[in-house]
């Protein structure tokens, strides 16, 4: 097998000039040693882990990404002081010179905004949740809240990119691609990394680079399933082409590509071949997995009325369960529209109406099927929102700006403590006072739960070994069950 290269194309028997010089020039001795140690693998940079570093607690992840950044203090992080000082100025002692976005930095005043939602404790664990999340409250004892998330990114593009790739700068492989690269596939008939986006939502744009494999081989790209008749674009055969004829075509194409591979050693060709094969198998597997008609009504009803409309968040949650059930390693939902610079109360009500019941139903559904034991569900957005009002504050309306210093996420299932809260923010919900968790730390923790030591899953690119957490990240031990 050839080394996977940045160019995807090179001339000398599958080796780039850099790697040729490295192996021949720097180390003929090294080459000899490598040959002795592993005669077949001396040139092989294949990285699929033969086994995970640790015993995995979870085999797969369903990431419910709330794009646009939900307001933590209207959903999870109860701050009565904001209600008490509603309308008063954010104290400088709290802000501590923190940079603000261009949207609120020119405001003459930064008045604190209390949440209009009631908070209550739920379940045996006594988790605090807002009245906007009545269904989530039902599964509170299954959830592990991290109230001390933080990131450097202050705007959506870098923020989402950070969550997806461990870097604010585009170009690195996405989290799901890293998992596909490290863990491999459980089910050869479906992609390892599937992306589901709630249809018809506006807001901050989502681009396919968020689920791109970056410098990892292209077969680790996330595959977006659409809500339309063709769940995966261009997958179905054109009218009048039979499956047998399709098979024959692919086999012939493979022979051609293998011939080409012998002459030029283009690793991208291997990807092509495997993609064609995968696509052929997906012609059978995708219609089966996306067909919700055999789901019992009782299950459908758990997810709420919108589940019957393809492409809704509810339908995607159910589909995520079906994909996970069939061995897909990483299913990522994106639900846009949380970016409430104005009209926070209406925004929260509307977003929660779409997401609260399905998110909770997914937990229940996984639980009763025994899947919550080895499926990790993660809920959260790219950063938090400010405790002060952006724009005009009226009696029953206000906006909130971006706030990277603290926000809340939750996880459930696969090896995390159920009914647990980690981390704490100050009375104003502005700064973290206890157990901060950076995005890198979250990545390290998720990988740990999947059995991967985040420091040991690497890919060599442009002369250095990259990893998802780069040079950062600590496993958050207190949240492990």
């Amino acid at each position, binding site marked *: 097998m050839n080394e996977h290269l940045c160019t995807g194309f090179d001339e000398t028997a599958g080796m780039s000039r850099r790697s040729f010089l490295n192996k021949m020039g720097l180390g003929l001795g090294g080459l000899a040693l490598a040959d002795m140690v592993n005669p077949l693998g001396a040139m092989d940079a294949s990285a699929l882990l033969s*086994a995970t570093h640790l015993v995995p607690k979870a*085999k797969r992840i369903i990431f419910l990404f709330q794009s646009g950044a939900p307001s933590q203090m209207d959903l999870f992080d109860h701050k009565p002081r904001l209600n008490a000082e509603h309308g008063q100025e954010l104290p400088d002692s709290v802000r501590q010179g923190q940079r603000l976005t261009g949207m609120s930095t020119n405001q003459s005043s930064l008045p604190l905004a209390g949440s209009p939602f009631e908070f209550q404790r739920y379940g045996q664990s006594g988790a605090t949740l807002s009245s906007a999340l009545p269904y989530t409250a039902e599964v509170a004892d299954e959830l592990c809240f991290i109230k001390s998330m933080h990131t450097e990114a202050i705007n959506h593009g870098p923020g989402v990119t950070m969550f997806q790739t461990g870097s604010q700068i585009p170009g690195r492989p996405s989290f799901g691609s890293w998992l596909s690269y490290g863990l*491999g596939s459980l*089910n*050869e008939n479906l992609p390892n990394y599937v992306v589901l986006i709630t249809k018809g939502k506006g807001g901050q744009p989502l681009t396919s680079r968020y689920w791109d494999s970056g410098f990892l081989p292209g077969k680790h790209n996330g595959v977006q399933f659409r809500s339309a008749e063709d769940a995966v674009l261009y997958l179905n055969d054109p009218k009048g082409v039979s499956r047998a004829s399709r098979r024959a075509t692919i086999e012939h194409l493979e022979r051609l590509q293998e011939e080409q591979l012998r002459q030029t050693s283009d690793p991208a060709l291997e990807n092509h071949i495997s993609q064609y094969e995968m696509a052929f198998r997906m012609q059978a597997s995708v219609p089966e997995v996306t067909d919700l008609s055999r789901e019992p009504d009782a299950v459908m009803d758990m997810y*709420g009325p919108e589940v019957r409309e393809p492409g809704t968040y509810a339908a995607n949650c159910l589909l995520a369960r079906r994909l996970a059930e069939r*061995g897909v390693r990483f299913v990522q939902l994106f639900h846009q529209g949380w970016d409430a610079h104005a009209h926070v109360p209406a925004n929260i009500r509307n977003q929660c109406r779409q997401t609260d019941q399905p998110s909770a139903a997914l937990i229940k559904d996984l639980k009763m*099927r025994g899947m919550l034991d080895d499926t990790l569900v993660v809920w959260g957005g790219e950063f938090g929102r400010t405790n002060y009002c952006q724009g005009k504050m009226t009696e029953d309306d206000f906006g909130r700006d971006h706030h990277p210093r603290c926000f809340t996420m939750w996880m459930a299932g696969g090896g995390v403590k159920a009914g647990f809260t980690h981390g704490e923010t100050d009375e104003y919900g502005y700064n973290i006072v206890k157990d901060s968790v950076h995005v890198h730390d979250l990545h390290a923790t998720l990988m740990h739960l999947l059995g991967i030591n985040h420091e040991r899953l690497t890919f060599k690119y442009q002369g250095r070994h990259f990893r998802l957490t780069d040079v950062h990240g600590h496993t958050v031990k207190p949240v492990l069950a």
Partner: protein
Amino acid sequence: MDWTAFFGRFHVVLLHLPIGILTLAALAEIWGGWRRLEERPPFLNLVWLGGWISGVATCLLGWMLSLSGGYDEAAIDRHFLWGVIATAIGLLGWIFLRWVKGRVLRMGAGLIQIIALSLAGHLGGNLTHGPEYLFEHAPNPLRLLAGFEAREAPRPEIVFLDDADIFLDVVRPILKNRCTSCHNPAKTKGELLLDTHEGIMAGGKTGAAVVPGDLAASELIVRVHLDPDDKKFMPTDGKPPLTDDERAVLEWWIETGAPASGTVFDLSPTVDMRPRLAAAAGIVSQENELGLKRREALDPEIVAQLESLGFDVKPISQEIAYVDVDYFGLGDEGIPDEKLAALQQARDHVAWLNLGDCGLTDAQLGMIASLPNLLKLNVDRNPLSDAGVVHLKSLKRLEVLNLHGTRVSDAAYSTLDALPRLQKAYLWGTDIVPNSNAKRTYAVFGLTPEPPEDPPSS
């Protein structure tokens, strides 16, 4: 200061002198008679005298030692008798043999002295080391000749903690190592026998050594926890004390009722307890973190063959060679028997198995039931009934069983209840009646709560 006890201990040092000297004298008499030597060297009288004097001193010290107690009275009496006889022969040898001309008499005296010395020495050795000591490693015919029962067969080598006998393999090795050199039938210090379960339960002079389930009342536990300077601390006389792990094992054994037999598996020790038990049973590092015996990696050819049949086969971690096997069929075709038969090649390695929604039949479940190390089994959404689930009774290590979406009914509980390690059973969407869920040793999921009919008020 107890001078008697102090000097008494020197008995075991001094005794070598009379044995050596008197043996020399006896052998010289026998040799002289044998060779019909005319002249008997006068020096020989001196040897007999020296032997007698050291013999008298040894007898005195021995008497002092016997006063410190703790020895079998009858055994002491026998030893003392033969010690005195041997010493007396020494005196007679010194006084009379110089006058004796007959070679037969001289040789006879030497022979008797050898016998007397051997008996005295052997009986003394038995007192110190226990009567078992000398013949401990003797071949069984010799042991029987010497009046010992045939040596019990060595315990079969335990390679897996769960197979170890709780008393014979775990508790008794600790007692043998630390306690039975004093608490055995020949040297029953404190009138306590710790070499058999009956002896332990009978207790000693102070009272009950072990009260099942009650550590505070168990003298054995109390004594090993005293200050090492305390007179009552055990083991006494500066013998090495029990380690923390050994104490923990004994305490755990007593808390579980101090059973005389049964396997470790039956007693379901906690995960922290297992390594300590393993150490006591002498099977360190045989077990991985799943509680299974360590194994070499599965043959890559078998892995490749299973992968080609559509199984995903992966070691559970880099440290654990047991494998996690998934199978995802395509379409409505069930999994064929040949594939399940091929899986048998990895039978000892399969710890986690997922055969959900692959058309698995009742008969095929019988093929899975032969995988001895299964910990997690997902056979959900398959056309299975109670008749098939019965096969699973052989899965003695099974911890998680997923049967959701199968056609099993309440009758399946008789199988589940028979699985000693079962922790979780997933039964949603089966024919099991939710209310029939009696209190069980494992958690049952998916029967309640039912999906909510009315949305909660917001």
